[in-house]
Protein backbone atom coordinates (compact mmCIF):
# COMPACT_ATOMS: atom_id res chain seq x y z
CA UNK A 1 0.00 0.00 0.00
CA UNK A 2 1.40 3.42 -0.76
CA UNK A 3 2.15 5.51 2.34
CA UNK A 4 -0.42 8.19 1.49
CA UNK A 5 -3.21 5.64 1.29
CA UNK A 6 -2.01 4.12 4.55
CA UNK A 7 -2.00 7.49 6.28
CA UNK A 8 -5.49 8.33 5.10
CA UNK A 9 -6.89 4.96 6.23
CA UNK A 10 -5.42 5.61 9.67
CA UNK A 11 -6.74 9.16 9.84
CA UNK A 12 -10.20 8.18 8.57
CA UNK A 13 -10.53 5.38 11.10
CA UNK A 14 -9.41 7.58 14.01
CA UNK A 15 -11.91 10.28 13.01
CA UNK A 16 -14.65 7.77 13.86
CA UNK A 17 -13.50 7.81 17.51
CA UNK A 18 -14.43 11.46 17.91
CA UNK A 19 -17.80 12.65 19.25
CA UNK A 20 -19.51 16.05 19.42
CA UNK A 21 -18.28 18.22 22.29
CA UNK A 22 -14.95 16.42 22.62
CA UNK A 23 -11.77 18.44 23.06
CA UNK A 24 -9.15 16.89 20.80
CA UNK A 25 -5.44 17.52 20.39
CA UNK A 26 -3.79 16.33 17.19
CA UNK A 27 -0.04 15.84 16.95
CA UNK A 28 2.00 16.53 13.85
CA UNK A 29 2.22 14.07 10.93
CA UNK A 30 -0.56 11.56 10.37
CA UNK A 31 -2.62 12.89 13.32
CA UNK A 32 -3.04 16.23 11.54
CA UNK A 33 -4.90 14.44 8.75
CA UNK A 34 -7.62 13.30 11.16
CA UNK A 35 -9.21 16.76 11.03
CA UNK A 36 -9.86 16.26 7.31
CA UNK A 37 -12.36 13.53 8.15
CA UNK A 38 -14.26 15.40 10.87
CA UNK A 39 -17.19 17.48 9.57
CA UNK A 40 -16.92 21.17 10.55
CA UNK A 41 -20.41 21.19 12.00
CA UNK A 42 -19.86 18.12 14.14
CA UNK A 43 -18.95 20.13 17.25
CA UNK A 44 -15.52 18.64 17.90
CA UNK A 45 -13.09 21.15 19.45
CA UNK A 46 -9.51 21.02 18.28
CA UNK A 47 -6.86 22.39 20.58
CA UNK A 48 -3.56 23.72 19.35
CA UNK A 49 -1.08 23.66 22.21
CA UNK A 50 0.31 27.10 21.39
CA UNK A 51 -2.89 28.42 22.93
CA UNK A 52 -5.98 28.02 20.74
CA UNK A 53 -9.22 26.07 20.66
CA UNK A 54 -11.09 26.44 17.39
CA UNK A 55 -8.42 26.47 14.70
CA UNK A 56 -9.89 27.43 11.35
CA UNK A 57 -8.56 26.95 7.81
CA UNK A 58 -5.45 28.64 6.41
CA UNK A 59 -6.49 32.24 5.65
CA UNK A 60 -6.61 33.66 2.14
CA UNK A 61 -3.56 35.45 0.86
CA UNK A 62 -3.11 38.80 2.55
CA UNK A 63 -5.64 37.96 5.26
CA UNK A 64 -3.37 36.23 7.78
CA UNK A 65 -2.28 37.90 11.01
CA UNK A 66 1.12 37.03 12.52
CA UNK A 67 -0.44 36.49 15.94
CA UNK A 68 -2.66 33.57 14.93
CA UNK A 69 -0.79 30.42 14.02
CA UNK A 70 -0.72 26.69 14.58
CA UNK A 71 1.83 25.05 16.85
CA UNK A 72 4.34 25.05 13.99
CA UNK A 73 4.05 28.83 13.54
CA UNK A 74 2.03 28.65 10.31
CA UNK A 75 -0.91 31.08 9.84
CA UNK A 76 -4.37 29.75 10.59
CA UNK A 77 -7.76 31.34 11.11
CA UNK A 78 -10.16 30.96 14.02
CA UNK A 79 -13.68 29.53 13.90
CA UNK A 80 -16.59 31.33 15.57
CA UNK A 81 -16.45 30.45 19.28
CA UNK A 82 -12.68 30.04 19.25
CA UNK A 83 -10.70 30.98 22.32
CA UNK A 84 -7.06 31.69 23.07
CA UNK A 85 -5.03 31.34 26.25
CA UNK A 86 -1.51 31.25 27.61
CA UNK A 87 0.73 28.18 27.68
CA UNK A 88 0.01 27.41 31.34
CA UNK A 89 -3.71 27.16 30.58
CA UNK A 90 -3.00 25.21 27.40
CA UNK A 91 -1.12 22.56 29.33
CA UNK A 92 -3.59 22.75 32.19
CA UNK A 93 -6.20 21.60 29.68
CA UNK A 94 -3.88 18.80 28.57
CA UNK A 95 -2.56 17.67 31.94
CA UNK A 96 -5.82 18.17 33.83
CA UNK A 97 -7.65 15.59 31.74
CA UNK A 98 -9.76 18.16 29.88
CA UNK A 99 -8.48 16.92 26.53
CA UNK A 100 -10.76 13.99 25.76
CA UNK A 101 -8.63 12.52 23.00
CA UNK A 102 -5.11 13.12 21.79
CA UNK A 103 -3.88 11.58 18.57
CA UNK A 104 -0.11 11.24 18.35
CA UNK A 105 2.38 9.78 15.94
CA UNK A 106 4.53 6.87 17.10
CA UNK A 107 7.98 5.45 16.55
CA UNK A 108 7.37 2.34 18.70
CA UNK A 109 4.70 0.96 21.01
CA UNK A 110 5.53 -1.86 23.40
CA UNK A 111 3.52 -4.89 24.53
CA UNK A 112 2.04 -2.91 27.44
CA UNK A 113 1.05 -0.06 25.15
CA UNK A 114 3.85 2.26 26.14
CA UNK A 115 4.76 4.77 23.47
CA UNK A 116 8.14 5.99 22.23
CA UNK A 117 7.72 8.91 19.84
CA UNK A 118 10.08 11.74 20.63
CA UNK A 119 13.70 10.77 20.16
CA UNK A 120 16.02 8.59 18.13
CA UNK A 121 19.28 8.65 20.11
CA UNK A 122 22.28 9.67 18.05
CA UNK A 123 20.04 10.85 15.27
CA UNK A 124 17.66 13.66 16.17
CA UNK A 125 17.09 15.33 19.50
CA UNK A 126 14.13 17.50 18.73
CA UNK A 127 12.88 17.45 22.30
CA UNK A 128 9.69 16.04 23.70
CA UNK A 129 7.66 19.22 23.23
CA UNK A 130 4.21 18.48 24.60
CA UNK A 131 4.22 14.73 23.88
CA UNK A 132 4.97 13.58 27.43
CA UNK A 133 2.25 15.86 28.79
CA UNK A 134 -0.30 14.66 26.25
CA UNK A 135 0.28 10.96 26.85
CA UNK A 136 0.27 11.44 30.61
CA UNK A 137 -2.63 13.87 30.85
CA UNK A 138 -5.15 13.32 28.08
CA UNK A 139 -8.18 11.19 28.94
CA UNK A 140 -7.61 8.94 25.94
CA UNK A 141 -4.45 8.54 23.85
CA UNK A 142 -4.62 7.22 20.31
CA UNK A 143 -1.46 6.47 18.38
CA UNK A 144 -1.62 6.97 14.63
CA UNK A 145 1.26 5.22 12.92
CA UNK A 146 2.09 2.87 10.10
CA UNK A 147 2.26 -0.73 11.20
CA UNK A 148 5.85 -1.20 10.09
CA UNK A 149 8.81 1.00 9.16
CA UNK A 150 11.05 -0.29 6.35
CA UNK A 151 9.48 -3.72 6.86
CA UNK A 152 10.23 -3.79 10.60
CA UNK A 153 7.37 -3.88 13.15
CA UNK A 154 6.74 -0.74 15.17
CA UNK A 155 4.69 -2.61 17.78
CA UNK A 156 7.40 -4.42 19.68
CA UNK A 157 7.88 -6.48 22.86
CA UNK A 158 10.06 -3.73 24.36
CA UNK A 159 10.75 -0.25 23.06
CA UNK A 160 14.39 0.28 22.13
CA UNK A 161 13.77 4.03 21.89
CA UNK A 162 13.22 6.29 24.93
CA UNK A 163 9.67 6.16 26.23
CA UNK A 164 7.36 9.15 26.04
CA UNK A 165 5.52 8.04 29.19
CA UNK A 166 5.28 5.08 31.49
CA UNK A 167 1.49 5.30 31.19
CA UNK A 168 0.19 3.13 28.32
CA UNK A 169 -1.75 4.52 25.39
CA UNK A 170 -5.35 3.39 24.83
CA UNK A 171 -5.51 2.66 21.14
CA UNK A 172 -3.11 2.15 18.26
CA UNK A 173 -4.48 2.58 14.77
CA UNK A 174 -2.39 1.51 11.80
CA UNK A 175 -3.21 0.88 8.15
CA UNK A 176 -3.53 -2.83 9.09
CA UNK A 177 -5.32 -2.91 12.44
CA UNK A 178 -6.92 -1.27 15.46
CA UNK A 179 -5.32 -2.49 18.68
CA UNK A 180 -6.55 -1.61 22.13
CA UNK A 181 -4.35 -1.64 25.23
CA UNK A 182 -6.31 -2.24 28.42
CA UNK A 183 -5.10 -3.43 31.82
CA UNK A 184 -1.80 -4.66 30.41
CA UNK A 185 -3.51 -6.59 27.61
CA UNK A 186 -3.25 -5.92 23.87
CA UNK A 187 -6.50 -6.70 22.02
CA UNK A 188 -6.93 -6.81 18.26
CA UNK A 189 -10.20 -4.93 17.75
CA UNK A 190 -10.35 -4.61 13.98
CA UNK A 191 -8.38 -5.28 10.84
CA UNK A 192 -8.28 -3.15 7.73
CA UNK A 193 -10.65 -4.23 4.93
CA UNK A 194 -8.02 -6.06 2.88
CA UNK A 195 -5.97 -7.39 5.80
CA UNK A 196 -6.37 -10.78 7.54
CA UNK A 197 -5.92 -11.48 11.21
CA UNK A 198 -3.00 -13.74 10.33
CA UNK A 199 -1.27 -10.91 8.50
CA UNK A 200 -1.66 -8.62 11.50
CA UNK A 201 -0.32 -11.28 13.87
CA UNK A 202 2.67 -11.86 11.61
CA UNK A 203 3.51 -8.13 11.63
CA UNK A 204 2.94 -7.69 15.38
CA UNK A 205 5.53 -9.48 17.52
CA UNK A 206 3.69 -9.13 20.82
CA UNK A 207 1.06 -11.26 22.49
CA UNK A 208 -2.17 -10.07 20.86
CA UNK A 209 -5.59 -11.19 22.05
CA UNK A 210 -7.87 -12.13 19.18
CA UNK A 211 -11.62 -12.62 19.55
CA UNK A 212 -13.48 -15.28 17.56
CA UNK A 213 -14.78 -12.60 15.25
CA UNK A 214 -12.58 -9.63 14.39
CA UNK A 215 -14.59 -7.02 12.45
CA UNK A 216 -13.19 -5.01 9.58
CA UNK A 217 -12.47 -1.31 10.09
CA UNK A 218 -15.44 0.83 9.08
CA UNK A 219 -13.98 3.69 7.06
Amino acid at each position, binding site marked *: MNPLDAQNIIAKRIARELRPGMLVNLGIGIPTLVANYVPNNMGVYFQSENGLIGTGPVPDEGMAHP*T*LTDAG*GRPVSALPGACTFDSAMSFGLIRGGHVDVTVLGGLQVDAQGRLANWMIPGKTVP*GMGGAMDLV*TGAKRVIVAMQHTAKGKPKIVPTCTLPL*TAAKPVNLVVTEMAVIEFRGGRAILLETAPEVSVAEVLAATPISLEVNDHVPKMAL
Partner: protein
Amino acid sequence: MQAISVEEAIDMIPHGASLMIGGFMGVGTPERLIDELVRQGKRNLVVIANDAATPGRGIGKLIAAGLVAKVVASHIGLNPEAQRQMIAGKIGVDLVPQGTLIERIRAGGFGLGGVLTATGLGTVAEEGKRRIEVAGKSYLVEIALRSEFALVHAFLADQIGNLSYALTARNYNPVIAMAADTVIATAEHIVPVGVIAPDHVITPAPVVDYLVRNT
Protein backbone atom coordinates in the same frame (compact mmCIF):
# COMPACT_ATOMS: atom_id res chain seq x y z
CA MET B 1 7.52 51.15 35.17
CA GLN B 2 10.09 53.15 33.29
CA ALA B 3 9.98 53.94 29.57
CA ILE B 4 13.32 53.36 27.85
CA SER B 5 14.83 52.94 24.41
CA VAL B 6 15.59 49.51 23.02
CA GLU B 7 19.34 50.31 23.25
CA GLU B 8 19.05 51.21 26.94
CA ALA B 9 16.96 48.11 27.61
CA ILE B 10 19.53 45.71 26.20
CA ASP B 11 22.44 47.68 27.63
CA MET B 12 21.19 46.64 31.11
CA ILE B 13 21.68 42.96 30.31
CA PRO B 14 25.17 41.67 31.14
CA HIS B 15 27.00 38.95 29.24
CA GLY B 16 26.07 35.58 30.73
CA ALA B 17 22.61 36.71 31.84
CA SER B 18 19.67 34.34 32.10
CA LEU B 19 16.77 35.41 29.91
CA MET B 20 13.24 34.10 29.67
CA ILE B 21 11.98 34.98 26.21
CA GLY B 22 8.34 34.92 25.15
CA GLY B 23 7.15 33.22 22.00
CA PHE B 24 6.17 29.90 20.50
CA MET B 25 8.05 29.10 17.31
CA GLY B 26 8.89 32.79 17.16
CA VAL B 27 5.25 33.92 17.38
CA GLY B 28 4.99 36.51 20.15
CA THR B 29 8.75 36.95 20.52
CA PRO B 30 10.06 40.49 21.12
CA GLU B 31 12.07 40.69 17.87
CA ARG B 32 13.33 44.22 18.53
CA LEU B 33 14.96 43.08 21.76
CA ILE B 34 16.42 40.04 20.01
CA ASP B 35 17.85 42.19 17.21
CA GLU B 36 19.40 44.56 19.73
CA LEU B 37 20.92 41.67 21.71
CA VAL B 38 22.57 40.60 18.47
CA ARG B 39 23.67 44.16 17.63
CA GLN B 40 25.21 44.65 21.08
CA GLY B 41 26.69 41.14 20.94
CA LYS B 42 25.58 39.99 24.40
CA ARG B 43 27.35 36.65 24.89
CA ASN B 44 27.01 33.43 26.92
CA LEU B 45 23.30 33.90 27.37
CA VAL B 46 21.16 31.33 29.13
CA VAL B 47 17.86 31.29 27.28
CA ILE B 48 14.71 29.82 28.82
CA ALA B 49 11.93 29.55 26.26
CA ASN B 50 9.48 27.14 24.74
CA ASP B 51 11.64 26.35 21.70
CA ALA B 52 14.57 27.52 19.60
CA ALA B 53 12.29 28.84 16.82
CA THR B 54 13.74 28.64 13.31
CA PRO B 55 16.93 30.10 11.85
CA GLY B 56 16.43 33.81 11.19
CA ARG B 57 13.50 34.14 13.57
CA GLY B 58 13.30 35.01 17.28
CA ILE B 59 15.65 32.97 19.41
CA GLY B 60 16.98 31.46 16.17
CA LYS B 61 18.81 34.74 15.56
CA LEU B 62 20.58 34.55 18.93
CA ILE B 63 21.68 31.00 18.26
CA ALA B 64 22.85 31.79 14.73
CA ALA B 65 24.91 34.67 16.13
CA GLY B 66 26.60 32.30 18.59
CA LEU B 67 25.40 34.24 21.62
CA VAL B 68 23.72 31.39 23.48
CA ALA B 69 25.58 29.21 25.96
CA LYS B 70 22.58 27.22 27.13
CA VAL B 71 18.96 26.68 26.16
CA VAL B 72 16.25 25.40 28.48
CA ALA B 73 13.37 24.48 26.17
CA SER B 74 10.84 21.83 25.31
CA HIS B 75 12.14 21.33 21.78
CA ILE B 76 14.72 22.61 19.36
CA GLY B 77 13.74 20.27 16.55
CA LEU B 78 12.83 22.89 13.98
CA ASN B 79 16.14 24.73 14.30
CA PRO B 80 18.91 22.70 12.61
CA GLU B 81 21.52 25.29 13.65
CA ALA B 82 20.59 24.77 17.33
CA GLN B 83 20.95 21.02 16.86
CA ARG B 84 24.34 21.45 15.14
CA GLN B 85 25.66 23.66 17.95
CA MET B 86 24.37 21.19 20.53
CA ILE B 87 26.06 18.22 18.85
CA ALA B 88 29.27 20.27 18.50
CA GLY B 89 29.13 20.98 22.25
CA LYS B 90 28.92 24.73 21.71
CA ILE B 91 25.56 25.04 23.36
CA GLY B 92 24.06 23.22 26.33
CA VAL B 93 20.47 22.07 25.98
CA ASP B 94 18.11 21.15 28.81
CA LEU B 95 15.02 19.56 27.35
CA VAL B 96 11.94 19.87 29.56
CA PRO B 97 8.42 18.67 28.77
CA GLN B 98 6.42 21.69 27.63
CA GLY B 99 3.79 21.49 30.36
CA THR B 100 6.46 20.99 32.99
CA LEU B 101 8.49 23.92 31.66
CA ILE B 102 5.61 26.36 31.81
CA GLU B 103 4.57 25.15 35.28
CA ARG B 104 8.13 25.47 36.57
CA ILE B 105 8.27 29.04 35.28
CA ARG B 106 4.85 29.80 36.72
CA ALA B 107 5.95 28.36 40.07
CA GLY B 108 8.97 30.68 39.99
CA GLY B 109 6.72 33.66 39.39
CA PHE B 110 3.99 32.67 41.82
CA GLY B 111 6.27 32.02 44.80
CA LEU B 112 5.94 28.24 44.73
CA GLY B 113 8.96 26.02 45.34
CA GLY B 114 7.74 23.72 42.62
CA VAL B 115 4.92 21.45 41.53
CA LEU B 116 4.17 17.76 41.55
CA THR B 117 3.58 16.28 38.11
CA ALA B 118 3.13 12.84 36.61
CA THR B 119 4.59 14.00 33.30
CA GLY B 120 7.96 12.38 32.72
CA LEU B 121 7.52 9.54 35.23
CA GLY B 122 9.41 6.48 34.04
CA THR B 123 11.13 8.39 31.24
CA VAL B 124 14.50 10.08 30.82
CA ALA B 125 12.80 13.26 32.07
CA GLU B 126 12.75 11.65 35.52
CA GLU B 127 16.56 11.52 35.79
CA GLY B 128 17.92 13.33 38.82
CA LYS B 129 14.48 14.17 40.18
CA ARG B 130 12.69 13.24 43.38
CA ARG B 131 9.58 11.11 43.29
CA ILE B 132 6.84 11.71 45.82
CA GLU B 133 3.62 9.82 46.56
CA VAL B 134 0.37 11.72 47.03
CA ALA B 135 -2.88 9.86 47.67
CA GLY B 136 -1.34 6.66 46.34
CA LYS B 137 -0.08 8.17 43.09
CA SER B 138 3.50 8.95 42.08
CA TYR B 139 4.64 12.37 41.00
CA LEU B 140 7.92 14.04 40.12
CA VAL B 141 8.97 17.09 42.12
CA GLU B 142 9.60 19.72 39.47
CA ILE B 143 11.26 22.79 40.91
CA ALA B 144 10.58 26.44 40.24
CA LEU B 145 12.49 28.27 37.54
CA ARG B 146 13.32 31.98 37.53
CA SER B 147 15.60 34.20 35.47
CA GLU B 148 17.35 37.54 35.75
CA PHE B 149 15.41 39.03 32.84
CA ALA B 150 12.13 38.37 31.07
CA LEU B 151 11.79 39.67 27.53
CA VAL B 152 8.10 40.02 26.86
CA HIS B 153 6.18 41.02 23.77
CA ALA B 154 2.64 42.34 24.12
CA PHE B 155 0.08 43.40 21.55
CA LEU B 156 -1.10 46.39 23.58
CA ALA B 157 0.69 48.18 26.38
CA ASP B 158 -0.80 51.19 28.05
CA GLN B 159 1.36 54.10 29.11
CA ILE B 160 1.82 52.77 32.64
CA GLY B 161 2.71 49.25 31.50
CA ASN B 162 -0.48 47.18 31.64
CA LEU B 163 -0.14 44.54 28.93
CA SER B 164 -2.51 42.51 26.78
CA TYR B 165 -1.63 39.93 24.17
CA ALA B 166 -3.13 38.87 20.85
CA LEU B 167 -4.30 35.36 20.05
CA THR B 168 -1.56 32.70 19.96
CA ALA B 169 1.14 35.33 20.47
CA ARG B 170 0.23 35.23 24.16
CA ASN B 171 1.80 31.82 24.94
CA TYR B 172 4.69 32.15 27.44
CA ASN B 173 4.67 35.94 27.66
CA PRO B 174 2.37 36.53 30.65
CA VAL B 175 3.91 33.64 32.56
CA ILE B 176 7.54 34.75 32.17
CA ALA B 177 6.51 38.32 33.05
CA MET B 178 5.95 37.01 36.60
CA ALA B 179 9.15 34.98 36.92
CA ALA B 180 12.11 37.30 36.35
CA ASP B 181 13.93 39.82 38.50
CA THR B 182 13.62 42.42 35.74
CA VAL B 183 10.82 42.49 33.20
CA ILE B 184 11.38 44.29 29.89
CA ALA B 185 8.38 44.58 27.58
CA THR B 186 7.84 45.66 24.01
CA ALA B 187 4.41 46.14 22.46
CA GLU B 188 2.95 46.39 18.98
CA HIS B 189 0.95 49.39 20.16
CA ILE B 190 1.37 51.68 23.13
CA VAL B 191 -2.00 53.17 24.02
CA PRO B 192 -3.34 55.67 26.56
CA VAL B 193 -4.20 54.50 30.06
CA GLY B 194 -7.75 53.19 30.15
CA VAL B 195 -7.81 51.88 26.57
CA ILE B 196 -7.26 48.33 27.81
CA ALA B 197 -10.33 47.41 29.88
CA PRO B 198 -9.50 46.13 33.38
CA ASP B 199 -10.79 42.65 32.50
CA HIS B 200 -8.55 42.50 29.43
CA VAL B 201 -5.29 43.37 31.12
CA ILE B 202 -3.30 40.15 31.31
CA THR B 203 -0.06 41.43 32.84
CA PRO B 204 -0.62 44.14 35.48
CA ALA B 205 1.51 47.26 35.19
CA PRO B 206 3.29 46.85 38.55
CA VAL B 207 5.12 43.70 37.39
CA VAL B 208 6.56 45.44 34.31
CA ASP B 209 9.87 47.15 35.09
CA TYR B 210 10.65 48.64 31.67
CA LEU B 211 8.51 49.37 28.65
CA VAL B 212 10.48 49.94 25.45
CA ARG B 213 9.48 53.05 23.53
CA ASN B 214 8.12 52.56 20.04
CA THR B 215 9.81 54.53 17.27
